[in-house]
């Protein structure tokens, strides 16, 4: 038993050996980033820095890292370092070293020295030898020595100029020339990955924990590298596209302020912004929320200042007018959001008679304002012109005044019996209702409410040409409006077609069907459909759907084809959601004598709704970006100058020929464009000058798809939180 005391239970940390090892790891990481930077052109490799070729720096660095790695192994074996190496570095290390050495020595002999076919025989011999040594030596030597020698050798190649930026290699059987400017960074990256791994392993004193550390460092590095490439792509599209999308955007400061304030309110109402109380992920989220909230608050304040100082901002073709007018549509959206968020709060049940009469007065005023709005709509626009609608604004003013009074009054004076002044939340709700009514009126009648400088207007507060204009051919006016409407109609059609089918099937499969050949067949079919390539769906549309609907590519065909693609996704998620409804619910319902279908309708489907909705949103995000089937079944003009007018072209006719009732919609039967399809059109149009249009379209498309994705995450979180309350 005394044997096991050899290893201390508590390590001594911070020895100079460990510091040296971690230094090598960090240096390897830096070298890796620098080498990756040369691929992007951020770090020069071909040029000279203070008279020395860039490649030489890489050579010296790599050589140094190799020597340092060798030193780590040597100190562990023969020095004072307290390490716990295993007997062998392990099979994987041996095999990796054997193959690296075989390839490296082979290529070196073949192409640099120039020996003929013998070189590969020689290389294999060297590789096997190195592999054997890596296995047979104790771990601290087996893991470091081959790495050190190999990396130092690489460094020597660069320093001596045997591989220089102007060096080039033409592999046999290809037509490409691989230049030194690529080989040097790639070899550097590979080499420093090895030194990073070896030094990370040495940091933990080799042995099992050392191998864990080495492996984790390697995996984490690779994963972060991959993720950063993908994030870089997103950022790149954003950077290229944002100015195109925002070109000639004009906003009124009033609208912006209202929208920002609403966002701030929504954030404060729904999310945690106190990083102190939460832990783990919630803490990260809380920090992010806090930052966003502060930024929103600052921006809101900024725009209020813009209105106050009457300074118009204009930067890079974006203009903010310093007017306090609010658009009716943004106003409706903002008011609706606030209204929805304050649904639970805002009840006021005053005890005293005066309080009740005040409440009654407010309600009556709201009713009057709403009634006048309706009257204006029915009686025509003369009344509206007369400005009766200003009543709602007046009402709003009264409410704001009452709010101010309530806010000034100290809280402790408001006792249970003395509820003459309504609570702020209730007043706020009345104010929002009044605001909504006013917006609704402006939206419906088109006549503004309020003054020229501050009020609600029907339109003109947001002018966003890229989103709201059609593109009139290349080179004139970029705009994605028709494509946007195309995408919207296709998604609507696909959802209407696929979601009922998928949910119905999910109900049958989870509730009615017993496990049988039939359900297994459906399982296989859905999984098959899920993995079927989108272009195959396109071919299917071409062969099956197009001939049956007017024999021409059309919006309807695209709707059906994308619906078929949506079907398996929604079916799989709906089934999962319904399976996860506990059987106790069903039993409880059945025990009360409720029939099976009633149970499904009132228990199973509502309980699984969160999962179904999340699945639908996720699926919609997928199909909204789908392009390949659209090539075959939508195939419209590249840059149409108007969107499909689906709503206004429904026709119903009763005739004597089958099917007797003819429902048709010519707009649905026409070819059209869609966002991803338009991006494809930009590429195939091949006019270099219009690439900016492509970046803009790509950004809008990404925005739509990622928006759906974020929406699905938000829904999931919302339902989860609701469930835990």
């Amino acid at each position: 038993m005394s044997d096991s005391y050899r290893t201390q239970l508590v390590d001594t940390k911070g020895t100079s050996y460990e510091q040296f090892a971690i230094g090598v790891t960090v240096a390897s990481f830096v070298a890796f980033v620098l080498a990756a930077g040369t691929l992007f052109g951020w770090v020069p490799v071909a040029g000279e820095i203070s008279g020395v070729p860039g490649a030489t720096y890489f050579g010296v660095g790599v050589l140094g890292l190799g020597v340092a790695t060798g030193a780590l192994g040597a100190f562990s074996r023969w020095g004072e370092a307290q390490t716990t190496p295993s007997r062998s570095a392990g099979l994987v290390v041996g095999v990796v070293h054997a193959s690296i050495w075989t390839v490296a020595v082979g290529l070196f002999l073949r192409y640099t020295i120039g020996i003929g076919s013998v070189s590969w025989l020689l290389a294999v011999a060297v590789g096997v030898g190195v592999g054997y040594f890596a296995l047979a030596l104790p771990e601290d030597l087996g893991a470091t020595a081959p790495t050190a020698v190999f990396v130092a050798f690489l460094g020597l190649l660069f320093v001596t100029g045997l591989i220089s930026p102007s060096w080039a290699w033409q592999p046999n059987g290809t037509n490409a020339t691989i230049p030194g400017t690529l080989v040097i960074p790639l070899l550097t990256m590979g080499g420093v990955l090895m030194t990073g791994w070896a030094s990370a392993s040495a940091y933990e004193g080799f042995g099992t924990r050392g191998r864990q550390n080495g492996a984790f460092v390697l995996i984490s590095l690779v994963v972060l590298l991959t993720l950063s490439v993908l994030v870089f792509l997103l950022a790149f599209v954003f950077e290229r596209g944002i100015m195109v999308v925002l070109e000639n955007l004009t906003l009124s400061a009033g609208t912006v302020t209202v929208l920002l304030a609403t966002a701030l309110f929504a954030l404060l109402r729904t999310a945690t912004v106190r990083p102190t109380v939460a832990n783990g992920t919630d803490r990260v989220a809380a920090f992010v929320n806090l930052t966003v909230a502060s930024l929103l608050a600052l921006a809101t304040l900024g725009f209020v200042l813009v209105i106050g100082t009457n300074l118009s901002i204009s930067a890079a073709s974006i203009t903010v007018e310093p007017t306090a007018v609010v658009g009716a549509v943004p106003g409706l959206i903002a008011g609706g959001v606030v209204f929805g968020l304050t649904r639970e709060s805002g009840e006021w049940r005053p005890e005293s008679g005066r309080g009740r009469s005040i409440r009654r007065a407010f309600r009556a005023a709201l009713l009057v304002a709403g009634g006048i709005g309706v009257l204006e709509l029915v009686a025509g626009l003369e009344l509206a012109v007369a400005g009766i609608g200003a009543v709602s604004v007046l009402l709003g003013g009264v409410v704001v005044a009452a709010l101010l009074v309530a806010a000034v009054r100290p809280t402790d004076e408001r006792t249970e019996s003395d509820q003459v002044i309504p609570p702020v939340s209730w007043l706020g709700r009345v104010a929002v209702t009044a605001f909504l009514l006013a917006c609704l009126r402006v939206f419906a009648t088109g006549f503004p409410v309020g003054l020229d400088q501050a009020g609600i207007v029907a339109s003109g507060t947001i002018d966003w040409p890229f989103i709201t204009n059609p593109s009139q051919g290349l080179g004139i006016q970029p705009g994605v409006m028709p494509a946007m409407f195309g995408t919207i109609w296709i998604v609507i059609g696909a959802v209407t077609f696929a979601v009922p089918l998928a949910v119905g099937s999910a109900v049958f499969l989870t509730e009615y069907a017993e496990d049988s050949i039939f359900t297994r067949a459906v399982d296989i079919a859905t999984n098959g459909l899920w993995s079927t390539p989108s272009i195959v769906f396109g071919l299917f549309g071409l062969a099956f759907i197009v001939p049956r609907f007017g024999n021409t590519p059309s919006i309807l065909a695209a709707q059906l084809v994308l619906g078929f693609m949506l079907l398996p996704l929604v079916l799989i998620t709906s089934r999962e959601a319904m399976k996860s409804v506990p059987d106790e619910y069903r039993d409880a319902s059945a025990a009360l004598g409720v029939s099976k279908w009633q149970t499904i309708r009132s228990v199973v489907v509502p309980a699984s709704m969160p999962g179904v909705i999340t699945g639908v949103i996720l699926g919609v995000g997928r199909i909204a970006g789908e392009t390949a089937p659209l090539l075959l079944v939508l195939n419209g003009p590249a840059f149409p100058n108007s969107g499909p007018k689906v709503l206004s072209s429904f026709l119903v006719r009763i005739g004597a020929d089958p099917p007797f009732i003819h429902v048709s919609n010519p707009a649905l039967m026409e070819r059209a464009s869609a966002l991803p399809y338009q991006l494809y059109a930009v590429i195939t149009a091949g006019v270099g000058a219009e690439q900016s249009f492509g970046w803009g379209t790509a950004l809008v498309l990404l925005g739509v798809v990622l928006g759906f994705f974020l929406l699905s995450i938000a829904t999931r979180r919302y339902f989860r939180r609701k469930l835990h309350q």
Partner: protein
Amino acid sequence: MSKTQNSVGRAGSALQQRVDSFGRTVVEMDRTSLLFAVVQLLLILGAFASFLIQSPWAMTLLYAFLLVTGIGWARRQELTAKLLTFEMTALTLSTLGLIAFFLFLEALPALREMGLGHVLSPFGSNQWSVSQGQFSLVPMILGTLVTTAVAILIAAPFGVAGALFISEIAPDWLREITKPAVELLAGIPSIVYGFIGFTIINKYVSNLFSITPGGAMFTIGIVIGFMALPTVVSVAEDALSAVPDAMKDGSVAMGATDWQTMKSVSIPTAFSGVSAAVLLGVGRAIGETMAATVMISHSRRMLEPTVYNVFDSTETLTTLIASGYGTAPPESTYMSALFVAGVLLLVIVTGLGIVSQLIQQRMQRKLRGGQ
């Protein structure tokens, strides 16, 4: 031998039971319900059939079906709901069959004219030439093979590393960020990748390697690999998370490191699931269309000077369809040959998807049984 007989016998008796229970249900129904059910089923079947043969009566039958269903909903909701959901399930099930049938139907003329051997055998002329009426798919199959091989060299190791990272290595807060980030990346439309590839990567690569511009196969493979990566990560991660914590705890409690636990317990236990993820990734890579379509040269010939020259550019099965549909006249052998490519894709990719699903199910059953 006796085992198979047994299982056949069991399946037979199960079928017998089901038929019996179905018979009992039918007998026990009252006459009106029975009438409703039969009429409803007949109407929907009729509507479906006349839709298939493009008869104008399809809509009429559908209206009649809706009418009967409406009445049934008001009078016999229980029965109607069950029937309706059953019909929906049957329709969903029929989709895959319809796809397979119609693709094959359209592919038949080309197969009949050229012969399966000419279209698929690599020992023929391997030539795709519309003017000479030669439609060999071999160059496209080669293209698909090469891009898929490159893609999977990226997607498999990085994908499995990513899955390990998310399920075992990353601290909680990082996992909560990376997991949705990976799902999000899976949702980026392929045409966006294609656009970046077309405008940036193609030029960069042709400059770097001094080759003619126009989508070297290995560039396309790398782009496709990155696109298939999120699929591999999330499916492999699911498989790794399915390994019971108790098993991992058992290993760690003996003083094994997390890395040893991963290597000796998690990965071997989840091996089938992880390989299913890679299979699915292969399927994604084969089926990927748009990114390749806008990057590739569409030259439809074998790679030169050698068939493994990844710096050359040709055509893949998917890009052939996407680029050929516009120029192919309807009803021509050319068009039909595109459908042959479609059938190939369907068989390979859908097959891979199904196989990978079966593997995952088997693994889950085994883990459940093992506990």
